[in-house]
């Protein structure tokens, strides 16, 4: 009983994540992707008409907004029923003013970068590569270059 509360092994979770690609294709002819949901939130917060001018198709991305609401509820479900008490996912120093500033900057890069690149880890790395698209591979290499630069060269400056 205790093992289900621990981290599930990669050979269960990895394939399950991968199965969402055929699942969404068969169920609704959609390619798994998440970062467009940020634009959908923009289009809800701002005037939708104004936002549609910039080339954003709200109708075709509405499902991603519903999907991320589900992800949030999934996180809540795990917190309440499926995790050992005391489990944390963010370092303590992110609970300070300096940490929050860093998270804001990082979040901005995530939103800006994924839209500029037209996809994130799900849309490019998983959906893109698994459907044999060169852009998925190039994007994934770029994600890692960015991540390696921060972790190896910039991390020590900010922490």
């Amino acid at each position, binding site marked *: 009983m205790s093992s289900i509360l621990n*981290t599930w092994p*990669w*050979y269960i*979770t*990895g394939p*399950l*994540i991968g199965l969402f690609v*055929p699942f*969404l*294709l*068969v*169920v*609704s*002819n959609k390619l798994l992707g998440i970062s467009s*949901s*940020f*634009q959908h939130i*923009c289009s809800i917060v701002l005037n939708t008409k104004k936002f549609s001018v*910039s080339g954003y198709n709200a109708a075709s991305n509405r499902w991603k907004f519903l*999907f991320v*609401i*589900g*992800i*949030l*509820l*999934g*996180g809540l*479900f*795990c*917190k309440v029923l499926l995790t050992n008490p005391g489990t944390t*996912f*963010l370092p303590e120093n992110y*609970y300070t003013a300096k940490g929050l500033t860093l998270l804001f*900057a990082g*979040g901005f*890069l*995530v*939103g*800006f*970068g*994924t839209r*500029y*690149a*037209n996809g994130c*880890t*799900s849309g*490019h*790395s998983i*959906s893109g590569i698994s*459907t*044999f*698209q060169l852009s998925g591979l190039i*994007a994934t290499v*770029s*994600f890692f*270059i*960015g991540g390696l*630069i*921060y*972790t190896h060269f910039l991390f020590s400056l900010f922490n």
Partner: protein
Amino acid sequence: MKDIKFILSGIVFGVILTKADVISWFRIHDMFLFKEAHMYLIICSAIATAAVSVLLIKYFKIKSLDKKEIVIEKKILNKGTIIGGGAFGLGWAITGACPGPIFAQIGFGEWPAIVTLIGAVLGAYSYSVTKSKLPH
């Protein structure tokens, strides 16, 4: 009913992301430090599973539930793929969250992730208004 389907599948996806630990800043940090194989094994096995499934869909000409031909969206490849991808990589390493996990972190009660989300929405907005001036 159509909406419920996406919310329910999102819940399952959120549970898997959370239990896989891919929403953990510590796991992302260790991945970029090459300290452990966990994240690499998850990403690679996810891609492999998805690729085999997509090949099967193509080989057996499987139709979607509404009996239409399955069409795979073409992902654009341009300068943005590299520049934007690099920017996202920096953000991923800082926040310990790619877009899906941001929502799972919030649901899990890691409230600073709300700030990550606000940043991400503003970032997406900034892109949409500066798009025409950026190299593509």
